């Protein structure tokens, strides 16, 4: 059938003419010249969230819709592109989403004590009576809200009867880890509930079956406590989660932006800390990393109101699924995947998904957590996450470097914050995390060129490091190749100088003609080679700007 060509209407022609005119004007105007590649303050280390967000309104997210939308409707942008919120040296500036705490931007040596303190600003509920003010109505974990003797409000959650210490342990450990990674999290404390110190506020309420508030009674508390693990002395180990400060706004989504937040200019699926979150979630088996387990609140910041973004509810991490042991599917398969489903249907169930047959330790406080079957690259959350789907090798590399920054001692210290009664549990969780970490690093530090810490001395000596080698997950590269260029910051053009150099150690001299002359910017294109590591071959491009005391790294591109 011949294609029909519709004649252009006059207004359309006029419109095109106008647009062309405007484009020509824009191109010619000096005031509107293309922005330079590097600004004078690059790289920035704090994202300037300069707008007042006091008018942002709360939103609700449906858990079921989130599942449907992400599993079947393909939520979010799918254009392959570099993370949008990284600075020019490929790092994430501090923001209302993220704070650099460990990793490449860590200031000073590792402060393990600070890591174990995590987000905590108090010591948990104050000694004295706990007054129940409402029953917890959200989430699957039984619990209630109390006001402690000091007037602070805490959400109290319990461990399931069959798995004492499991959910609370997982939540405390993961809170510390995610805080260390750089995210904003709630303050979660382990505490002891003594029934003698528990009282019900006269105006305490809960929602009835129809969602209407009704008076909370002792029977209602007993019903919660019946589902909770109790210690032999009659007390309960509980997780006390402190109210997050600020005006609550509900969850954030892993795609798009919050349309009423003026500071939210980067698509969430293009935020590196949300893309890289996949690596952390995979390490800690946080399969429920989804919108409903996040929380935005309006807080005061430098004289204005901004939205701060938190990760919430780590009850379904490690081997815990809050009210039961973690599902075997968790981390291994989405809730819905057509291929294994069809194979299972057609083979009358004779095909058994391999993860169903994985062995787990007989330690109730652990639940289901292991490192033998685990593969970092195969790990999946409960359902597709738009930010994870867009994660690239450089995003995962960024996250893996943060993981690499936590040594065995730090991992062990963070696990100890769970205060497990059985030392075997502490030992097992620590060992499993360390083994899983090795797989995370082996996978993601080698999936791209691992060259880091690139520096150019005043004398023109280029030095760099191999992050994979440094983390012990790869042998040294057989060789590195370096291509030097002058870089035109206005046009973005590279002008190669000399031939590509090959060196066997992470060190190379810049050509004298380059450093001796007076370019403001130079670039070095670096490749690493090892027959076992095909992922290394892609280049890293480092940019240096002439400074009073030599050269400063102003840009770094991995996967350019």
């Amino acid at each position, binding site marked *: 059938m011949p294609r029909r060509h519709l004649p252009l209407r006059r207004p359309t022609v006029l419109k095109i003419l106008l647009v062309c005119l405007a484009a020509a004007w824009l191109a010619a105007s000096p005031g509107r010249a293309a922005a330079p590649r590097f600004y*004078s303050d690059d790289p920035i280390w704090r994202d300037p969230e300069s707008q007042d967000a006091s008018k942002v309104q709360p939103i609700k997210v449906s858990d079921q819709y989130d599942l449907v939308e992400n599993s079947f409707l393909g939520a979010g942008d799918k254009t392959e592109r570099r993370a949008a919120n990284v600075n020019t040296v490929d790092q994430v500036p501090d923001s209302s989403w993220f704070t650099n705490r460990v990793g490449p931007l860590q200031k000073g040596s590792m402060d393990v004590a600070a890591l174990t303190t995590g987000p905590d600003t108090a010591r948990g509920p104050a000694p004295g009576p706990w007054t129940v003010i409402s029953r917890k109505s959200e989430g699957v974990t039984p619990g209630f809200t109390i006001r402690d003797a000091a007037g602070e409000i805490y959400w109290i959650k319990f461990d399931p009867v069959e798995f004492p210490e499991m959910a609370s342990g997982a939540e405390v450990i993961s809170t510390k880890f995610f805080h260390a990674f750089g995210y904003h999290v709630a303050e979660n404390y382990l505490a002891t509930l003594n029934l003698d110190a528990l009282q019900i506020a006269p105006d305490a309420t809960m929602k009835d079956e129809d969602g209407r508030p009704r008076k909370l009674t002792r029977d209602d508390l007993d019903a919660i406590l019946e589902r909770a693990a109790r210690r032999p002395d009659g007390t309960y180990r509980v997780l006390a989660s402190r109210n997050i400060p600020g005006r609550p706004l509900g969850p954030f989504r892993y795609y798009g932006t919050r349309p009423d937040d003026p500071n939210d200019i980067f698509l969430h699926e293009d935020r590196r800390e949300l893309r890289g979150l996949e690596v952390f979630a995979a390490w800690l088996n946080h399969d429920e990393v989804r919108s409903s387990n996040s929380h935005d609140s309006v807080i005061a910041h430098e004289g204005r109101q901004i939205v701060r973004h938190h990760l919430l509810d780590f009850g379904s991490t490690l081997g815990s699924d809050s009210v039961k042991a973690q599902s075997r599917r968790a981390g291994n398969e989405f809730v819905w995947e057509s291929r294994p489903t069809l194979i299972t249907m057609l083979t009358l169930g004779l095909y058994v998904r391999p993860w169903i047959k994985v062995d787990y330790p007989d330690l109730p406080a652990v639940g289901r957590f292991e490192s033998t079957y685990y593969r970092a690259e195969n790990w999946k959350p409960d359902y597709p996450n738009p930010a994870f789907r867009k994660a690239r090798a450089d995003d995962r590399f960024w996250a893996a470097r943060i993981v690499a920054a936590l040594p065995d001692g730090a991992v062990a210290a963070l696990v100890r914050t769970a205060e497990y009664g059985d030392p075997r549990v502490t030992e097992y969780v620590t060992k499993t995390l360390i083994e899983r970490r090795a797989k995370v690093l082996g996978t993601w530090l080698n999936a791209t060129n691992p060259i880091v810490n690139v520096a150019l001395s005043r004398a023109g000596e280029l030095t760099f490091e191999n992050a994979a080698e440094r983390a012990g997950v790869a042998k040294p590269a057989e060789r590195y190749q370096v291509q030097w260029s002058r870089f035109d910051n206005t046009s973005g053009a590279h002008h190669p100088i000399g031939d590509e150099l090959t060196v066997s150690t992470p060190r190379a001299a810049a050509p004298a003609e380059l450093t001796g002359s007076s370019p403001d910017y130079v670039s070095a294109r670096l490749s690493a080679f090892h027959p076992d590591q095909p992922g290394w071959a892609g280049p890293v491009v480092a940019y240096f700007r002439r400074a009073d005391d030599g050269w400063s790294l102003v840009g770094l591109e991995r996967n350019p």
Partner: protein
Amino acid sequence: MRIRRTGLLLATTLFLPTTALPQTTRTEALEQQRSDRAKQLETYKPGRLEKLFLNADEGKLQRWIAPHNGFFAGYGYTYKPSGAGFALGGGFRHDLFDRRARVVFEAGESFRNYHMVRGDFSLPRLARGRLELGVEGVYRHQPQDDYYGPGPDSRSEDRVSFLYKDQEFQGRAIATLRPWLSAGTRVAHLAPKIRSGTDDRFPSIEEVFDDAAAPGLSEQPAFLYGEGFAEVDYRDETGHTRAGGHYSLTFRKYSDRDFDKYGFRSVDLVLQQYIPIFDKKRVFALQLAVAGTDANDGHQVPFYMQPTLGGGQTLRTSRDYRFRDTHAMWMNAEYRWEAFSALDMALFTDWGKVAPKFSDLDFSNLEHAYGIGFRVIAARTVIFRLDLATGSEGMRTVVKYSRVF
């Protein structure tokens, strides 16, 4: 008009001084982006589908249609029998006396003109929730129940319909002795009536059968009955069981209050066992059920109170109530496998028979069915079941909105 708007827009864009200034720092550039965005803010508005889910999440629709307290409506109704067809029910229910008591008034009607009216008053939380006392009154009207004649040799071509209706007033006491163990008793007055069936496709019962083939057809007494039951239930989930067991034994004694001809006792035994493998992703589900009646000396068990076999819960190649006699037994075995979390499949087989004597409930001449099933699961409950069966009575498709066992 449109072109004017475009021109105006371009002019505004090109000559506005605010965005024309180049930024000299990254910070300024980002601040400018945010400043521009601040001029275009809008409130988040969920789409239609999302709104639907949000309402469902909050239970708004559920609370509006079927609240725990208040007027309610829904698919089906209490005591809706197999064969009633599509039915709707509704009524009023409410907790009373600070949740210590509960009252329910309910009525239901099916497209086949089955209906039911019921009232119930209970004290469900006595002894810290371990004892329930209650009274109930029910009127049932079932105009198209099926009868094929007595015994295992009844013929499907002899199908007739009859109207069954009754009034029942019942008192009950149910004790939950352990979370997995309950026992109780009921005392009731039951007044059934049998009339001509209204299913046009088949003759009415009196046109084909007489009292000899359908005891109690010409006269229906009122009964007083007493019941005792015990139940062990340690299933992991009741709506979608993957592990555990469920065993129940119910004994009833019916006394004929009018004719002294239809007094009898009945015993119902149900044993269900669920054997999981592969982390409950595969389950062998087994059921054995035996129902027996024993008439008093010189008495008969009315045909409409006899155990039946057939239908989607017992023998899937046969229609509901296909076989009736004073004794019945059926066995079901299913191999279930999870295709994914919302869909189970099953290979199944059903075996059963009815007999006039308990001693005849052996393993000879069993009716049988086998087939494949698909079950949709939501909220840990089977909400839809499609079973394709074939066997001693040919092929049949079973569609139900509930589990088998």
